[in-house]
């Protein structure tokens, strides 16, 4: 008998007796107020993320210093032209020297300050981790109130890869000291910017 069949047979033999129906999930009231942009920003900051305000004439005003100081910028958004073309990357290792990656989020979650990406936004998934810093464009109209609402979205069933980022890479494995930039990005900054049509 194959391991598969042996495992399934053992499970059937040992099925717990009793009736255990799958519960219906109630719709929980969001824990956030009506101003989703403010709620999102507040929670993102508590998770170590940053919020940068766009200015008239310069969407990236809040991260201008970071961009100016970067040697290699990989942009996955039309709002900014970088100097590393993600669409011509053959192997993920090629983005290891990226200083700043700029990507657009599918949506944000106010309850946690999270943003969602799939392979469509990242183009090269690894850039969201190998880059030193991540700049995220988020349309204020794309903020969902809570985690429950997020998991009703289709991306989780249709993307090869879907990931919620909540602030930067972090660790406190040494005596509880919080450190940003454990293995992934050292900072994550969200810029509220509507999508261009």
């Amino acid at each position: 008998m194959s391991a598969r069949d042996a495992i399934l047979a053992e499970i059937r033999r040992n099925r717990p007796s009793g009736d255990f129906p799958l519960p219906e999930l109630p719709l929980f009231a969001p824990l956030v107020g009506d101003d989703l942009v403010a709620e999102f920003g507040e929670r993102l900051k508590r998770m170590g993320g940053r919020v940068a305000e766009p200015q008239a004439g310069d969407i990236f005003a809040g991260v201008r210093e970071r961009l100016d100081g970067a040697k290699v910028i990989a942009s996955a958004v039309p709002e900014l032209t970088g100097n590393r073309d993600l669409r011509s990357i053959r192997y993920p290792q090629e983005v290891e020297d990226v200083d700043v990656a700029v990507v657009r989020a599918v949506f944000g979650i106010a309850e946690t300050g999270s943003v969602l990406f799939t392979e469509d936004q990242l183009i090269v998934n690894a850039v969201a981790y190998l880059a030193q810093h991540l700049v995220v464009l988020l349309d204020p109209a794309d903020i969902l109130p809570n985690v429950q609402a997020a998991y009703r979205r289709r991306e989780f069933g249709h993307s090869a890869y879907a990931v919620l980022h909540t602030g930067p890479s972090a660790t406190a494995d040494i005596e509880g000291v919080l450190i940003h930039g454990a293995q992934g990005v050292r900072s994550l900054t969200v810029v509220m910017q509507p999508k261009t049509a």
Partner: protein
Amino acid sequence: MSVEDLNPREREGVIHPEVRARDDESERAQDGTRLQHAEAASKPIRAPQVREPQPRGAKIRGNRPIDQAEAAERFLAAPLHQAAHDERLWDLRKKRDTSAHGIPEWEELRELASQIKTHTLSHLDQYLEQFEAAAKANGVHVHWAKDGADHNRIVLEILKSHGAKTLVKSKSMLTEECGFRHHMDANGIEVIETDLGERIQQLDNEEPSHVVAPAVHKTRMDVAEVFAKTLGTDPDNDDAHYLAESQRETTRPYILQADAGMTGCNFAIAETGSVVTCTNEGNADLSGNVPPLQIHSIGIEKIIPKVEHLGVFIRLLSRSALGSPITQYTSHFRAPRKGTEMHMVLVDNGRSERLGLEEFWTSLKCIRCGACMNTCPVYRRSGGLSYGATYSGPIGLIIDPTFNKRKYSTLPFSSTMNGSCTNVCPVKINIHEQIFAWRKVLVEEHQIPALKQGMMKAAGAVLSRPAAYRAAIGAADSALKVLPRFAVYNPLNTWGKKREMPEAPRQTFHAWYKQNRMKDTGR
């Protein structure tokens, strides 16, 4: 009135003032306020700058019963380690409480999580078949492993067929269970752990001591010593930022050059065939997205039916584990990247058998948050390694004996039976009741040494019958006095050390309830 008003010390919540650090190196938010997300401590905790050798874990002697008490005694004999450990884990427990209390539907979420898990486990064959079909349709190679050895053999074959020699991986308790690293090592495969805590443990040739904070038993000085020896860092520099950065810089080349990447699995979704991982470092995403070959090891009990159920579990997991509303990264791997291969290995390793244990099968609901460890007075005072098993703390007491009844026969006795583990469990496993049930099973099967059996008879006769138990408590005014002093302060009972048992309230809760509530309902 808040808890702080009632008890001003609660504001500080310090158990061990000697480990409160004056300066604070934790990251700050954009507005300058102190951050405490991920597994960060809510206040600076630091073992004093006095070198104290790290107490090591239980001595493993083949199949002989683990002497947890002996290892716990050595942990207690290292007061700086013990104090920092106790303080840090209690801090995580309090962060968990604050986080849980912030959600009005918390208890409802726990009940839902429990029901979803019991439903799935009682239909596990169907959900596994659904998962397999979905994963295959996504272009994923699906494998089934009866036990740990089977898992290791399957992964080795996958690696060999690709000529892979190096593998980077994220933390996985399942692979610890399988002895994966040791097996790969013996077969010429270089395995690199990418989680900081897990890497520290790998370099120190130790098992993880905690399911979410693998090196929580080590001070920064211990880490500095390990890194100085293995990574060539400055032995006199124990700055946490320096140490973490050293690990990042030395791990990155492995990530870039690895032939394969591996992750564990927090949740496997039957309807989509996806594997979900929750990390703070983003190392599962690096392991899954950089190397050309990716492997996900999945314990078969990790299945949940639908994506929407993540809306329950993701809200519970990190809040229970760390008091953080979500981990920094929640990653959903469904299909391979273009031009790469994705393998999923479904591992049984005793789980299907456990399903048939009437009193113990619900331990399979566990989502490995570690909340039961953080709250456990025995665990906090003895360290995870004292259990000498893959799983430590309260959940370990009820899982480990299913792997080896003789070797782990004494573990269910390392509990005060205070029930706190059960109260914090996000999936409502009746942990302390299962601990007690295991004691009975192990005594009946003569797995327990004679001395402990004597203690058991005294306590067991009373504790096993609720009416007699209540009568005994009422008569003695204290549950503790039911047990003879030698049983409470016996050298085998390490949790009785260093603390006198509290005076019990004059009226027991049960008596109060009977007097005040039961009469209202006319019973």
